[in-house]
């Protein structure tokens, strides 16, 4: 023990010296380390990370465009790099890397490179890498200025394009993967490393869709330095209809639609170029129409729930009370939600009316059609058409009363008669104000909206066996988006005019048809109303004045 103590005492100066040298070295490394370490971005796909500085050396990993590496040295035509994600070092050819040091690491240079790359298809992950490098290199003032807004927009657009590419890729039937799919998967992984998150949505027929979560666009919307056009693009990207999760419950969907409407309302429209203003207006029309449906549906559900199952007795009493009122005595008995639904539907129509159709780009035609279909589906709501009503149509009285919660029951009786000629209950929003009877008094047409953006035409037809109920859908396909709209009666009581437009099962179709009342078969049809003589002669004036199908 004494010996050990003596030795320790003797070696104390050398120990201190060693400690001092070690500490000095550590400080030196800390000071010199960051200065020597430079970052590089991989500029090509499937770049080999080799074990040695020669092409014959074994490949340790495959690097993809946009990945960030740390340069630790160079040898011949290779950089010695270290990949922190894979925790592996190696050599990469210099021609396959973009070193971010010196002038290349300046924010202006990075922004210039980003401007070049952001438009190139397939280089989205590299764009994300450059945008991330810009965010790291830029000062606070630059980040809050126009450059920061441009970088964020580029980041968002790159992520969005990457997601769209991934959504378009169809899996092979044999389950194998192509080189393009491998590249896409790797680039998605690179994007995830930069904090870009995607949502996966299950579409119909088992297709998967990837949607960018939108963080960069959200930040862009909050930046004072962002231009109006940038904010419009960000708002449009955040409110894409195809990125709405189909699995959302109605309350969640209403909340999400309200959020989308708020985001779009933040866009300052007047300074925008016409085509960008059109795009925002079209999106607003779609979103407000959808919101109108959700709110009207909620009002109907709560109304039905509050009335409960005893609605039948109320129906009888209500009908009796209203029968003395003569002609149209219906009144919207909805609560605040249905009022807000009417307001939303009116706003949708207003926004649609502000669209300058002559300045519509070819790419916007699909969005324009969608806005028109959604707006037209809910246009009777804007006119106060939804809700319970009791109205007289010629010699008939049509009353709408609640059934089970969310259900609306239509009853057709003769004026002065007690027995119902026809009674039908349905789960759609029945637009009472849209009811029209023909001159012969043997048919009634009324609009119903059973699903968001899907408006069908109910036809009540008097036959030898009594009144019959039949429904004309927008198209004979899986319900998607569309409307079948009453456009007028043809004399004789055998035919009616119908405007139909739908996008379902991947097909879009718009037609103006002469439909036979018996069986609702189409007798004649045309893509333009002016090409059908019957439309020119017998179309209803109120339909022509209010419909969006003649846009």
């Amino acid at each position: 023990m004494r010996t050990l103590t003596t030795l320790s005492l003797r070696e104390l100066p050398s120990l201190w010296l060693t400690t001092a040298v070690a500490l000095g070295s550590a400080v030196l490394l800390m000071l010199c380390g960051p200065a020597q370490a430079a970052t590089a971005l991989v500029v090509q796909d499937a770049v080999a990370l080799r074990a040695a500085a020669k092409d014959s050396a074994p490949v340790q990993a495959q690097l993809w465009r946009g990945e960030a590496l740390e340069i630790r040295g160079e040898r011949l035509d290779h950089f010695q790099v270290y990949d922190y994600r894979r925790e592996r070092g190696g050599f990469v050819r210099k021609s396959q890397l973009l070193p971010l040091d010196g002038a290349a690491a300046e924010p202006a240079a990075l922004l210039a490179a980003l401007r070049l790359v952001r438009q190139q298809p397939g280089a989205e992950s590299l764009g994300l890498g450059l945008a991330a490098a810009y965010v790291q290199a830029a000062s606070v003032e630059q980040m809050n200025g126009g450059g920061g807004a441009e970088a964020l927009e580029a980041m968002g657009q790159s992520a969005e394009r990457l997601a769209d590419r991934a959504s378009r890729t169809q899996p092979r039937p044999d389950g194998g993967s192509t080189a393009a799919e491998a590249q896409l998967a790797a680039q998605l992984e690179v994007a995830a490393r930069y904090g870009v998150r995607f949502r996966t949505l299950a579409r119909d027929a088992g297709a998967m869709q990837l949607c960018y979560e939108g963080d960069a666009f959200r930040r862009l919307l909050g930046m004072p330095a962002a231009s109006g056009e940038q904010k419009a693009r960000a708002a449009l990207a955040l409110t894409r209809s195809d990125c709405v999760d189909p699995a959302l419950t109605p309350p969640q969907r209403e909340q999400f639609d309200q959020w989308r409407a708020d985001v779009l309302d933040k866009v300052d429209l007047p300074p925008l170029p016409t085509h960008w203003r059109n795009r925002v207006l079209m999106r607003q029309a779609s979103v407000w129409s959808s919101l109108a449906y959700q709110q009207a549906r909620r009002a109907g559900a709560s109304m039905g729930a509050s009335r409960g199952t005893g609605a039948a007795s109320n129906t009888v009493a209500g009908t009796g009370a209203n029968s003395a009122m003569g002609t149209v005595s219906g009144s919207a008995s909805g609560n605040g939600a249905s009022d807000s639904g009417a307001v939303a539907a009116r706003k949708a129509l207003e926004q649609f009316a502000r669209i300058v159709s002559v300045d519509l780009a070819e790419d916007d035609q699909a969005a324009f059609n969608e806005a028109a279909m959604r707006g037209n589906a809910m246009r009777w709501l804007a006119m106060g058409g939804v809700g319970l009503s009791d109205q007289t149509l010629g010699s008939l009285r049509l009353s709408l009363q609640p059934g089970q919660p969310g259900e609306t029951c239509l009853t057709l009786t003769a004026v002065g008669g007690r027995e119902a000629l026809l009674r039908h209950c349905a789960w759609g929003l029945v637009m009472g104000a849209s009811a029209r009877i023909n001159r012969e008094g043997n048919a009634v047409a009324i609009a119903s909206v059973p699903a968001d953006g899907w408006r069908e035409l109910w036809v009540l037809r008097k036959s030898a066996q009594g009144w019959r109920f039949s429904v004309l859908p927008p198209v004979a396909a899986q319900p998607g988006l569309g409307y079948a709209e009453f456009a007028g009666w043809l004399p004789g009581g055998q035919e009616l005019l119908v405007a139909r437009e739908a996008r379902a099962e991947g097909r879009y179709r718009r037609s103006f048809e002469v439909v036979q009342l018996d069986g609702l078969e189409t007798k004649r049809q045309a893509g333009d109303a002016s090409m059908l003589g019957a439309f020119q002669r017998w179309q209803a004036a109120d339909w022509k004045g209010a419909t969006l199908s003649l846009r």
Partner: protein
Amino acid sequence: MNERTHSRLNALRHAAARIRALLSPSPAATEAAGAALRGAGRGAVRALPWLLGLTAVAGAVALLVMHPPVHEVPRGDVSLRSNQLTGGVTEARSGSLLVIPGLHSVRDLPLRDRSYHPTRFARADGEAPLQSLEGLSLGLDLTVRWGVDTSRLTQLATNLPDDVENDLIAPALQGLIYRQIATHTVREVFSTQRGAIQQTLETELRRKLAADGIVLRSVEIGNVDLPAEYRQGLEQLLAEGLASEKMRYTLELEEKKVKQTELTAAADKVRRETAAEAAAREQIIAARGQEEAMKHVLPFKQRQVEQRQLEAEADRVSRIRMAEGSAQARTIEADGEAKAREKLADAEAYRQTRIGKVAVDQMAAEGALLSRHPLLIQKAMADKLSDKVQVIIAPPPSDGGFIGKTLLGTGAPAAGNATPAATATQQEQE
């Protein structure tokens, strides 16, 4: 009174003496002056009784003004006038009392309550600290509130000592408090028995002082001055007690918080359930709407399918009929073709026969020609070799020599031989 009168008369005498001394220096003048003075002296002597009377009256008046024989009753006190001769006592609570010196004596007694604040045992390290049951010194800050028994004022006017607090209350209090405190521990004095001690002191002191005509209103115990070490320990103990008390309240508070949380959670649960119920209902309604829309589409889809089936059937029938027609047409075409071919074959056979006959005739003619001109065989062979070969027909030399000799011109050409060669060349050129 008499002393004052005498002193004033002496002063007058001294003044007259000084005037005489002033007037005495000159004999003549003195004489004259003496006569005047004598006259004056005589006048003065004659006026002296009047002067004295006047002075006495003035002195008496001044004396009465300066010391009026009245006693003003102080505010809040009662004045008791005792007649020294009769021993009667007159009580006055306000205004003034005539007090004739030598005849009356006045005593003021307080009507208001007074506070006595003893200081001797106020501090543990003070003059005469109290002793507790444990023998520890402690100080007690006492306040005794007392008053005079107004029903016994007449008696008290004579019996009550001048300094009531020190002569009456302080001894009584000391006699009580030392004994009382000595029966209690410091802890009891400090905290638990404070009220009881105060009550006991108050009761006993009230009884004791009542005999002397003092009404005890209250005894208040203020600060208890403990020994420093004991104070620390006790404070710690009390702090712990307070902490435990506080803990009890804290626990009660926590229990109430738990109950509140439970109630909030229950309300939240009900709210969530209601919201979930509403959401589920809306979802069901939406699903039913979708289902209904699909149900409305299905007949049309069915009709569409049937129509497509019918169209397909019609297409099939039409295709079959077309195929049948096509097959029949092909058969007819084949028949026609066969007949056509037969006819063509007959025509060909006829043509061959005719050609054969023509060829036989031509061969016969050629045979005849060859028989006449055998060299034509070689020419024909040479023509077949190539079109580049020029053929010259020359007759064989008559002498049996080289055939080209005639062409080379080695000998004189015979006129007869030259003619066929020229003919052959001409034919070749043609």
